[in-house]
């Protein structure tokens, strides 16, 4: 049996029934990586030896009869902007090509407390800036459903690895759609949690007020399982929310009778492909037939969200990336005569084009004379967007929208046009601006054979409702676990 094709829930049950060992599961995933990685290019670092060591330890604990977490022994990959002690963490950038963190991110510590097995670190757009996974210093990741197409970004490696069976679960980060868009393009589940529900300690910051770590999986159960493990307050992150979280798996409830699903007209407007609209509407109707109530709603500020997003995220990026100066860690230029030259040459040689573009934009919108015209205006719009969402959630329980405007595009197709590339995020950025949770799930395939994704958006801390309605849809369509032949 090809264990890498199974979900974490199935593997967890098999482990407990002694139908397989964690070492067998891990070897199956490692073999899969060996066989398909040269086509998919999902990983920057593969940690085979560590994975086998961790799997052996889980098998020993299970043999002793220890009561372990359902995630124990499950192979998990982590986006390479999340710090892992003694394992290279590059952010897919030349400037951090040799950085080995002396500490673990809180999310990785929590996964280790749940005895997961680390398969390696996954490719991304440099510093999580991008929508296609083409901006990495190391490699371009391909979409496992068609290798000529992008997997989406920035967490393209995390989405592609789960889709290709090169990991059972993965973690990514989402600043403007970086979990949901690749999840949609690769036909897997991706959750962007409520801002503050998952600690950002150890996540290399891009835009601190928008960044949030979240999981990828091939089923809703698996997504709820890993989210349960990583959420919760953390004293190391002052922005993490102090509250209790339920057991999301135990509380899964697929009764959607009377659930009000809002369909915001702005997300079905011009610019979204007819095929995508049609698939999402068919999914909505299927849910309606099973008890949900469809409610037409409007979120008029959506049109401006992309602009606000690029101003706020670039401003924060320009500030966060000031720490990369060639002094404390990472790359240092060999060509300098004084300190300023060292800073400038290190940063110019170490950062890629997209990162430089956003640093320049961020510096511009924060510079004297332009702050009020750009940054302050964007922050006020942020408040207006959140108010609109809050008012809309009085009319409906969750919102349903397409995740992307279309299916994945060809590698290189949009590389030279940043505006075209930025437009990919149009359906996802508002969620980050408002700090809300959203989940992208597969809703069929287009004529070109590539997956289509739809997203449910809920009020802050409504992850359980998102899991419930997504699980209902998953049950109705017979599951999302579709590992392509490569």
């Amino acid at each position, binding site marked *: 049996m090809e264990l890498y094709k199974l979900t974490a829930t199935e593997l967890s049950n098999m482990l407990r029934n002694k139908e397989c060992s964690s070492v067998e599961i891990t070897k199956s995933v490692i073999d899969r990586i060996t066989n398909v990685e040269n086509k998919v290019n999902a990983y920057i670092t593969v940690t085979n030896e560590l994975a086998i060591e961790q799997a052996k330890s889980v098998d020993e604990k299970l043999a002793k009869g220890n009561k372990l977490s359902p995630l124990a022994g499950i192979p998990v990959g982590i986006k390479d902007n999340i710090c892992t002690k003694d394992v290279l963490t590059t952010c897919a950038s030349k400037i951090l090509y*040799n*950085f*080995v963190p*002396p*500490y673990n991110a809180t999310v990785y510590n929590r996964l280790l407390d749940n005895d997961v097995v680390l398969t390696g670190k996954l490719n991304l757009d440099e510093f999580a800036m991008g929508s296609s996974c083409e901006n990495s210093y190391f490699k371009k990741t391909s979409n496992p459903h068609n290798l000529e197409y992008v997997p989406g970004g920035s967490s393209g490696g995390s989405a592609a690895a789960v889709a290709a069976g090169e990991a059972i679960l993965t973690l990514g980060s989402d600043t403007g759609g970086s979990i949901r868009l690749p999840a949609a393009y690769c036909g897997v589940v991706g959750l962007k949690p409520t801002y*503050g529900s998952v600690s950002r300690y150890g996540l290399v910051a891009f835009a601190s007020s928008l960044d949030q770590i979240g999981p990828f999986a091939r089923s809703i159960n698996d997504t709820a399982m890993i989210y349960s493990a990583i959420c919760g307050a953390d*004293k*190391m992150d*002052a*922005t993490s*929310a102090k509250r209790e979280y339920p057991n999301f798996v135990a509380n899964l409830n697929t009764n959607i009778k009377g659930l009000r699903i809002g369909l915001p007209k702005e997300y079905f407007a011009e610019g979204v492909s007819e095929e995508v609209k049609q698939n999402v509407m068919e999914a909505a109707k299927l849910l309606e037939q099973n008890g949900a109530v469809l409610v037409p709603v409007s979120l008029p500020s959506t049109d*401006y969200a*992309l*602009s*606000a997003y*690029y*101003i706020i995220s670039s401003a924060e990026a*320009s500030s966060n990336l000031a720490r990369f*100066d*060639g*002094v*404390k*860690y*990472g*790359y*240092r230029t060999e060509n*300098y*005569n*004084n*300190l*300023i*030259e*060292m*800073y*400038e*040459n290190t*940063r*110019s040689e170490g*950062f890629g084009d997209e990162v*430089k*573009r956003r*640093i*320049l*934009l961020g*510096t*511009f*919108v924060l*510079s004297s004379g332009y702050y009020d015209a*750009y940054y*302050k*205006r*964007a*922050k*006020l*719009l942020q*408040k*207006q967007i959140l108010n609109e969402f809050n008012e809309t959630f009085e009319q409906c329980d969750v919102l349903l929208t397409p995740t992307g405007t279309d299916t994945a595009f060809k590698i290189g197709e949009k590389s030279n046009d*940043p*505006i075209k590339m*930025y437009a990919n995020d149009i359906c996802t950025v508002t969620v980050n601006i408002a700090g809300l949770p959203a989940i992208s799930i597969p809703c069929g395939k287009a004529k070109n054979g590539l997956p289509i994704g739809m997203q449910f958006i809920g009020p802050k801390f409504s992850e359980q409702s998102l899991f419930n309605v997504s699980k209902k849809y998953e049950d109705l369509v017979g599951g999302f676990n579709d590992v392509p032949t490569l």
Partner: protein
Amino acid sequence: MKVDIKHLAKLSRLNTTDEEEKRFEVQLQSILEMVDKLPCISSNDSLVDCSNPMKCREDVPEQLYKREEILSNAPQVQAGCVVVPKVIE
């Protein structure tokens, strides 16, 4: 709007070649055209989100890492210190 890439690059501690300057100028101008569409909102509201007030950790010194661990990532180290070019005459 004309964007002075050279000045922005100086503020950002980046060097740009002539070719990069031209490219970034065109790209930033089109990005700024996009973001210029933002509506003007008159508001005296605070820009701070009060729904989740941040609580910082107590400022208590802790021995979390060994000096060698922290320095192991520095590009150049001498006598337990990071080496940088001379900054004073």
